[in-house]
């Protein structure tokens, strides 16, 4: 027994020594540190692990091309474990103790809201890659996912048009939290403006992980049989989607009768569902894996090579990280420094040829100009792009359809220098 303990102690000691040595070797003064703040365990791991891997791939790629400013780039990965307060703690750990130069992270809006005060207090820099409800512009965050006017509004416009089936009645289905509620508030205001009656809009929320969709699906069916072409706008998030789509298919709702357009379902989510009965249901994103562009071909090839699995798919938030990372690297080169204030100034106007095949640009409201694409689910779990914008669309941080937000401007350049101002600060 005693000898066991000794051996164990020795082994532990040795491990610590190795760890310290490795740590100090890595912590060479001249590496640039990139924090990765994505849940690797808990409910959100399902989506966020992929994003962690995407950042690691980008870092690998950068290093094999000589690093940045002649220095090597090093990833600092932490696991906030799908726990919102822990996100704030880990963010503080990254910025304050690990002294990272930039952080790529967060998925849910609630996790972003939780880390926001930390980044603002410590003047850190966060790249947030997921489509979200808008109504925010922080000096310390660059939002590389879509705002509602780059996803929700075009999606609804498409379905309203002849091409999308001239929908006149709307079911707004969502999981009960901030993103669906805010998006639906914007959509309702937009639909009302287009002349849709209050009685032609049905809004319904479910708890996280809702698995029994029988009642809601049959209500949707009934609502749709009341005389007008009906479409469903789904902001259902995460795990609840699989039972929802299974119920849709089994109750025989085809996309030609009642199309369902989703804002949180991409290639990765579909890989968990048998899609043969879902053909034609839609999703609206800024990127699909099926985009035909040389950048995308390379992106997919690199990803599958990095993850050593040629079945793995790419999706929109991954593309957002790709754009964000490239832009950050360009901005650092341009600024000649990783200093947050210098990089922020250099970020404005950065342009990247993205896998979507368009040149996307970072605006002074900290949001991107991106293309909008609408895809229909195919039987092999991919999307056929049935519609896309000719040009990129600039994100509205504040929705013009919510009266109190319409007055606000987000512009971090002179003379505004503000995320939510009614008039310029310096004039």
């Amino acid at each position, binding site marked *: 027994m005693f000898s066991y303990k000794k051996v164990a102690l020795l082994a532990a000691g040795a491990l610590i020594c190795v760890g310290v040595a490795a740590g100090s070797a890595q912590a060479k003064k001249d590496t640039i540190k990139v924090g990765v703040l994505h849940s690797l*365990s*808990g*409910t959100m*791991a*399902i*989506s*966020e*692990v*992929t994003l962690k891997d995407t950042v690691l791939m980008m870092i690998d790629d950068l290093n094999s091309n000589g690093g940045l400013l002649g220095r090597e780039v090093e990833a600092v990965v932490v696991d906030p474990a799908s726990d919102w307060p822990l996100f704030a703690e880990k963010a503080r750990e990254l910025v304050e103790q690990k002294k990272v130069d930039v952080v790529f992270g967060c998925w849910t809006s609630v996790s972003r809201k939780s880390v926001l005060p930390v980044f603002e207090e410590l003047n850190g820099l966060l790249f947030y890659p997921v489509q979200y409800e808008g109504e925010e512009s922080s000096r310390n965050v660059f939002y590389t996912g879509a705002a509602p006017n780059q996803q929700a509004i075009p999606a609804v416009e498409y379905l309203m048009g*002849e*091409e*999308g*089936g001239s929908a*006149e009645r709307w079911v707004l289905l969502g999981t*009960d939290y901030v993103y669906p509620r805010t998006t639906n508030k914007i959509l309702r205001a937009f639909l009302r403006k287009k*002349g*849709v*009656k209050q009685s032609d809009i049905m809004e*319904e*929320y*479910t*708890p996280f*992980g*809702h*698995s*029994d969709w*029988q*009642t*809601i699906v*049959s209500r949707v*069916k*009934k609502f749709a*049989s*009341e*005389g*007008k072409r009906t479409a469903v706008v789904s902001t259902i998030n995460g*795990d609840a989607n*699989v*039972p929802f789509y*299974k*119920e849709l*298919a*089994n*109750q*025989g709702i085809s996309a*030609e*009768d009642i199309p369902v357009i989703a804002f949180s379902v991409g290639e990765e989510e579909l*890989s*968990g*569902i048998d899609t043969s*009965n879902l*053909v*034609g249901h*839609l999703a609206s994103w800024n990127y699909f894996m099926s985009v035909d562009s040389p950048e995308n071909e390379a992106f997919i090839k690199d990803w599958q090579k990095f993850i050593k699995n040629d079945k793995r798919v790419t999706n929109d938030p991954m593309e957002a990280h790709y754009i964000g990372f490239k832009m950050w690297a360009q901005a650092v080169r341009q600024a000649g420094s990783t200093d947050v204030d210098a990089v922020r100034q250099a970020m404005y106007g950065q342009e990247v040829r993205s896998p979507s095949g368009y040149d996307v640009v970072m605006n002074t409201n900290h949001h991107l100009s991106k293309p909008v694409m609408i895809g*229909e689910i195919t039987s092999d779990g991919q999307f*056929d792009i*049935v*519609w896309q914008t*000719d*040009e990129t669309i600039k994100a509205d941080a504040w929705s013009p359809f919510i009266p109190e937000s319409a007055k606000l401007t987000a512009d971090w350049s002179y003379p505004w220098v503000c995320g939510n101002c009614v008039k310029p600060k310096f004039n």
Partner: protein
Amino acid sequence: MRHFYNYFSRPASVFLLLLAMAAPLQAAPSEAVSFETAAAGLASSSYSDRMEAIKTLGALGDPRAPGLLGSMLESRLYRRVSDDRLVDARREGSAYLLSDPSTGESLGEAGSRDIRKIMVNNSLRGAIRAVLSRMDLFSEDLERRRAAVEAATGYPSNEMAGSLVQALANEDDADLKAAMEIALATSRLLSTDAATRLAGLETLSETTSSEVRSMVSRLTETDADGEFYEPDPRVRGVAAGIMANMETRMRMLENVGKLYQGLSLGSVLLIAAVGLAITFGVMGVINMAHGEMIMLGAYSTFVVQELFRDYLPADLFYLYLPVAVPVAFLVTGLVGIALERGIIRFLYGRPLETLLATWGVSLVLQQAVRTVFGAPNRAVENPFWMTGGFELAGVVTLTWNRLVVIAFALAVLAALGLLLRYTALGLQMRAVTQNREMASAMGIKTGRVDYLTFGLGSAIAGVAGVALSQIGNVSPNLGQSYIIDSFMVVVFGGVGSLWGTLTGAMSLGVINKFLEPVAGAVLGKILVLVFIIIFIQRRPRGLFAMSGRAAED
């Protein structure tokens, strides 16, 4: 697009472009649009051109059209870049096998760069289906005609009405004739003549299918500007009367539907909770890893499915599910036994420590599965006999997967009841839970009974995982979504009583489903929880309280 704008910026090009556009415009109005011209329109990049081409193909009635449109419907129609020919392409590895869509004649292979997909969306698919069903109305094959009529109700139009009148004259089958009348009546609602619309409504007054309901109620609706879709107030009045009639008939069926949905939700709760009724109910172990046993069962199903897909012929694939049941039973049973022998047996009589330890185990299992299988969801396919469902009068859909789960849950419960009642193991289990010392004094190896009981509870949870993989998603978090519900059912039903578990699960399911339409899903769930809290305060031992000595400690 940018190139396009550049064209416009040069006056000469604009002129050329106009000339080019003028040529087909002159040809278009004449009836002499050939099949080839119309077919070429399918490859246009403009949505309205493609729609026009589909309609023209439908009007031409060329025998080559069904093959072409059928191929487009399945998203298999491509344009060959080299000669602009429309081909049917099927993916075979990294290449595509080409054939002629109309004749099926093989055209060799091509790479993904040699062909361009003809994009088809929901609206175009709808138009194609309408055209194809109009053509199929005159098919020789009765089944095809039947399918065509069924589809025709969903695509009413004046052309459809014309085709249906013709088809009716040729039809001999009485059932089909009746279905055609209904389909014809829906198309007649679109007529410009009010009398025809009224005649259509007469025919439809007895039907409740959702397509018909939709068409009739449209006549009573107003559009965005507040104008009625139906100009004639007489027709509106008749339509409103029919709608009111339908409502009353549907209300009864809707309640049947809610009851079914409640039983279905109840059976899901039941199957998830039965295992816990053993480990928690019978043994008194607060087993927080119960959900993870369900999850392991679901992953066993996934593994069996993958093995079937890789090693057995495709026509045996539908059998994977019955095979997955014993596999999941064994796998989770063994994990359960290991868990009991390794951890839980040291913690008997210390509920708090058990709770913490099993919770820790649940986290370990989750992360282990996440490491082995990856974080994203895994797709478990429903075998064909579990997809779809059947409709009752267009109001309630009973889905096969849920029907199977109801039957399966009841079967598992019955098997367990029999096992406890009639086998030696069952007898020993009951003896040990009632009085451990006495049972031990009678020569029962209580340790062995303990691990077998825990193993059985876990194994049943694993079997539940097989069933639940057919309804929900298979992810490392699967168990978490069922653990709370399971405890709720067992506590509500009465700890230690299988009848209690059954009644508890079913009544919670039904209550939930009758509350949900009124209160919404979120509030409905809260109300159910509040109800249980109040109930437990009144009857702390649940619905079916155990009586006698066992209940006293």
